[in-house]
């Protein structure tokens, strides 16, 4: 039985939250949409005027924009497979019975990287990856690798961002996949283990089908978060050297905050928002069927 409730009561319960989120979450977007049709630079406020779709035209023919999109895609395709491979390995180890206390402890340590302030993660990279004083280069020295200039060289800086993204988000992927592994009915898993001694066969034919939802969740959320990625890269490289690590969010920040071209930044934001909404729709379609 569903409770019959007057509309006024419903509005009283839900209205304030909707109003608040509309004011802080939607009004600025509409404002951005409006500004995206203007030539609007904070250094030349007098020149403000309606330019229609010109900003969009500039963005879509701007090599900086496409380079940033390309870099963001490259980061995704290099970091996420590593995160999934390592994450799956970690999840499989933790999923095995035995050593319960140590596994709980390991699970707790997995929670730490993803909760760490993203800006601090970037600062840690600065300290640990420094060419002369960095501990990572010291460790590489122990195995006979020459010190690498991680932050100062364009290619290496990109690799450093990948490494750091892997550090921060592999534990997240591992815990999501671990949750997926626990959805395999224990009796099916036990029966399979009696049939075959190869853990690979069990993974491939028994566990993998149950892992698909978790994997899809990981892919969509990591795409969204890679598009959002700002704090860590900003503190680590500011998008440099040159624009070697200028991912999409960093580009928009540079255009808006360091070039003061709000109109152009708004157009870039709206394009990014469109991508985001498609992703969110996809995620909702796949994971919240039961509510609709």
């Amino acid at each position, binding site marked *: 039985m569903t409770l019959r409730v007057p509309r006024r009561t419903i509005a009283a319960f*839900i209205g304030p939250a909707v109003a*608040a989120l509309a004011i*802080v979450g939607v009004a600025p977007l509409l404002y951005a949409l409006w*500004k995206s049709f203007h030539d609007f630079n904070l250094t030349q406020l007098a020149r403000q005027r309606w330019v229609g779709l010109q900003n969009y035209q500039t963005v879509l023919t701007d090599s900086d924009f496409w380079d940033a999109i390309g870099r963001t895609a490259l980061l995704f395709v290099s970091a996420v497979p590593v995160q999934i491979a390592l994450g799956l390995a970690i999840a499989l180890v933790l999923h095995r019975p035995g050593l319960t206390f140590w596994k709980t402890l390991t699970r707790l*340590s997995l929670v730490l990287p993803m909760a760490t*302030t993203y800006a601090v993660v970037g600062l840690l990279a600065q300290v640990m990856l420094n060419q002369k004083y960095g501990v990572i280069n010291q460790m590489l020295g122990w195995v006979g690798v020459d010190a690498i200039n991680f932050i100062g060289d364009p290619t290496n800086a990109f690799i450093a961002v990948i490494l750091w993204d892997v550090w921060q988000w592999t534990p997240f992927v591992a815990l999501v996949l671990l*949750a997926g592994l626990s959805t395999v009915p224990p009796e099916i898993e036990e029966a399979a283990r009696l049939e075959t001694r190869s853990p690979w066969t069990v993974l491939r034919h028994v566990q993998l089908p149950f892992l698909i939802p978790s994997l899809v969740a990981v892919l969509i959320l990591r795409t969204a978060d890679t598009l959002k990625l*700002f704090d860590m890269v900003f503190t680590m490289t500011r998008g440099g050297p040159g624009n070697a690590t200028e991912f999409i969010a960093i580009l928009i920040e540079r255009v808006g905050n360091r070039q003061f071209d709000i109109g152009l930044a*708004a157009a870039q934001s709206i394009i990014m928002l469109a991508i985001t909404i498609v992703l969110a729709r996809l995620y909702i379609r796949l994971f919240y069927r039961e509510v*609709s």
Partner: protein
Amino acid sequence: MAAPMQARSLWAEGIALALIGLFCVFPFYWMVTTSLKTQLVALADPPVWWFTPTLANYREVLFEDRVGVSLINSLIVATSTTALAVLLGCPAAYALARFEFRGKTDLWFWFITNRFVSPVVLVFPVFLISRELGLRDTHLALILMYLTFTLPIVIWICTDQFRSIPRELDEAAMLEGASQWRIFRSICLPLAMPGVAVSSILSFIFSWNELLFAYILAPNAAKTAPAMAISFMEGYDVPYGKIMATSTLIVVPVLIFALLASKHLVRGLTMGAVK
């Protein structure tokens, strides 16, 4: 024959666990030890592992460099936005869990969509609006903007929590003549406290960690701790010890909260798609 093999695989597993733990924890170890080094020790080449620790960096950042003030700003912003999100979010979550109305699913989806929106999309319009309204560099601007991610988290987790409370309780109270608000306040909300606690912790963590809005909207008076920490990077002589001391001060409270809510952090980050 089976016993030694099992023992060996147990060892292998133990080593794997240790490596995973080390992978996660080592950067924190390095952060804390660097924060206890003088600039001279921090700039040793190669890095040193054993040294005489000093608290000088903490003294300096807290009392000379306004990191103390920025931590208080962070605390004010994170607790206020969390409180506001709970205040607005709990009744909304109750309505989503209990009432049937038109547009409910759309509303629900809209809340979840906010998880995907990048702050960089919002930050410039908000910068201009806050300048117009005289809200630039105030706590209020940040508190309100952080609602964009704290409110959806609270609504999502609390809706789930309210759904798990048997409807019979509501129905019984209704027969007694209790008002809808009374049922929510005196019966359901107390039972939903675990969800409220978890969502509060998660919103606190996310708002405490936020950098972009803070960096753009609050450059001076309301500057939060993460924005303060990155301001040390400007200039030629980078004070590693001080940066790591500030980082430690920022990260420790979040990590404590993360451990408290460790079972729910993944649920929060996936908006409940993964339990």
